């Protein structure tokens, strides 16, 4: 993985020192809250329901074991012994003390991590496929270009005060595990007819209060002009994006209002003007970055035999949570942070440290965070999978429910978030408990439920096969039911089925939807495909009569 050079480390260390001074000045009264608030937000520090919340960047969701161990240490030393992995592949701590925050950031900096650009109207953490560098279907490791984007976008002076926050995702297979069309920019690494690797560029997707699927604005971009094209997009957005209304300030609104063709023309014209000004990196620099992501020393003699275990639960986990690896004899193991009745995405300090140890023993010290709030051991020998599974079971993170109905995405909701209108986590817990029977889950097959506690859609409800949006109805939590969304390569936006429900009612409504699916599905048909085939009406009739 990428390792800081002396410039990276100096920048991050200097930022810690600067923030330590800013905190001291705030605590002494030299800075008012109005003066200090934007400074703390620049360092990812929010004030939430119960305390300060720190959002730590995990670039493209990649962690070393040393870093994950440090995240566990931070949970124990500075928080209440846990952290929350987010849909941005980041981690949030919910109980941070301002007076300890500089020490926390110094600890983070000691393992090449920080919280810079996890807030504010800047380019946020670059996200990508959690199977990067491991997936059997991968064209090229997307972390290379994600890292190039990270370096380009960090402290980019021209893009420090954008009209609104800006999110970029990179994917490198035809299977979209990064939801690229639901980002401000989605980059798809692809091959042309001659086998040359380049990019397809999507712009103007997003969720939030105005969900949109990003249109393709360039079907082929050579590697040699990657950064200049990104810069051209950002320059057009920075120039024309609305700053008078924060609800209309995202680039998706600009693309929509200008029209795709006009927006693309603006980008292309800007690109022509800047593409030869030395913004792009040369092949040697790209190779230098790529070297950081060289494959680990796989064992060429690793057994390719399917692993077995006396406990049939292992077989279920193997089938559901283990994915094909590009190296013979290896596999990708997804660690579920969705135990039945648990809080989606939460991990204790002990779990983080133990998973870091497992990564050292079985996955070259490499861990990934998924946008679905799970963790991944990306490089596990097939022969080691039984031992890994046993260890995960001991940590209570071996649920064989990847992409099943209990693998629910949920934002922190009203239990933690000042923006939320309703609680998300209790709904996720109640649904997981309602469908706790694993045979029932497996029978239902792939079924992605995503829950947001407000219209900002951090829980990706627009992209849920079943989406749930919590709203406030005259002081009472109310939950809207949406069907038919997808964040995968078949991207679609979910539609509201009808009137909302109370907390009990939404659980019953979801069960009714699911049972309706069971009645009308054809053999092997996923929920999403059934919905697309039969439409909303059978579900509407079943739920509302």
């Amino acid at each position, binding site marked *: 993985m990428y390792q800081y050079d002396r410039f990276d480390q100096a920048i991050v260390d200097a930022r810690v020192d600067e923030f330590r001074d800013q905190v001291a000045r*705030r*605590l002494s*009264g030299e800075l008012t*809250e109005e003066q200090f608030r934007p400074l703390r937000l620049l360092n990812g520090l929010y*004030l939430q*329901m*119960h*305390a*300060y919340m720190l959002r730590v960047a995990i670039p493209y969701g990649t962690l070393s074991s040393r870093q994950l161990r440090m995240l566990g240490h931070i949970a124990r030393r500075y928080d*209440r012994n846990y952290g929350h992995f987010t849909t941005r592949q980041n981690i949030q701590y*919910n*109980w*941070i*003390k*301002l*007076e300890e925050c500089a020490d926390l950031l110094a600890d983070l900096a000691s393992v090449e991590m920080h919280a810079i650009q996890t807030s504010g109207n800047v380019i946020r953490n670059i996200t990508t496929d959690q199977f990067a560098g491991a997936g059997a279907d991968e064209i090229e490791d997307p972390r290379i270009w994600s890292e190039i984007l990270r370096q380009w976008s960090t402290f980019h002076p021209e893009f420090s005060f954008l009209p609104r926050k800006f999110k970029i995702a990179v994917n490198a297979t035809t299977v979209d595990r990064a939801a690229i069309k639901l980002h401000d920019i989605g980059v798809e690494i692809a091959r042309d007819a001659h086998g040359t690797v380049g990019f397809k560029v999507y712009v103007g997707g997003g969720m939030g209060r105005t969900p949109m699927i990003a249109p393709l604005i360039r079907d082929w971009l050579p590697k040699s002009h990657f950064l200049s094209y990104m810069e051209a997009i950002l320059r057009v957005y920075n120039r024309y994006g609305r700053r008078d209304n924060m609800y209309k300030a995202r680039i998706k609104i600009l693309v929509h209002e200008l029209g795709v063709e006009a927006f693309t023309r603006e980008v292309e014209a800007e690109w022509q003007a800047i593409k030869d000004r030395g913004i792009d990196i040369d092949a040697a620099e790209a190779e230098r970055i790529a070297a950081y992501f060289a494959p680990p020393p796989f064992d060429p003699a690793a057994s390719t035999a399917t692993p077995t275990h006396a406990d049939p639960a292992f077989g279920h986990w193997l089938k559901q949570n283990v994915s094909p690896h590009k190296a013979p004899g290896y596999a990708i193991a997804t660690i579920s942070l969705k135990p039945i009745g648990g*809080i989606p995405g939460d991990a204790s300090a002990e779990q983080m440290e133990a998973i870091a140890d497992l990564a050292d023993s079985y996955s070259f010290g490499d861990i990934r965070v998924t946008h679905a709030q799970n963790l991944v051991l990306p490089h596990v020998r097939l022969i080691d999978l039984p031992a890994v599974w046993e260890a995960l079971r001991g940590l209570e993170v071996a649920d064989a429910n990847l992409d099943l109905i209990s693998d629910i995405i949920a934002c922190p909701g*009203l*239990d*933690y978030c000042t923006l939320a209108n309703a*609680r998300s*986590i*209790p709904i996720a*817990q109640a649904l997981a408990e309602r469908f706790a029977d694993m045979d029932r889950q497996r029978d239902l097959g792939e079924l992605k439920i995503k829950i947001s506690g407000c219209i900002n859609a951090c829980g990706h409800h627009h992209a849920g096969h079943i989406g749930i949006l919590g709203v406030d109805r005259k*002081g*009472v*939590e109310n939950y809207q039911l949406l069907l038919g969304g997808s964040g995968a390569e078949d991207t679609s936006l979910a539609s509201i089925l009808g009137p909302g429900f109370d907390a009990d009612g939404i659980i019953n409504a979801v069960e009714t939807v699911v049972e309706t699916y069971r009645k009308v599905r054809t053999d092997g048909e996923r929920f999403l495909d059934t919905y697309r085939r039969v439409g909303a009406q059978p579900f509407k009739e079943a739920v509302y009569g």
Partner: protein
Amino acid sequence: MPFVLKANDLRGGAVLYWTGSQWTPRLADGKRFDSEEATQQEAARDGVRLTVVDVYPVAVTDSSPASLRERINAVGPTVRPDLCRSTGA
């Protein structure tokens, strides 16, 4: 409906209530005001805001805030009862 004055501790971020002379984590010890306006007037007094942030009035019933948001604020996340605190009621 009576109001209390609520804030977060500047240093630690914890939810606090104004007793009339100091900040306390115990909602039960929070001074009751007759109106939102009276609460805001209290918030504007010299010294009240020195050690806290995000100061605003909260409507309360006899023993707890009227809104779900403020009840969660007062007690803690409903999904982590082990981390919740007593309001002192």
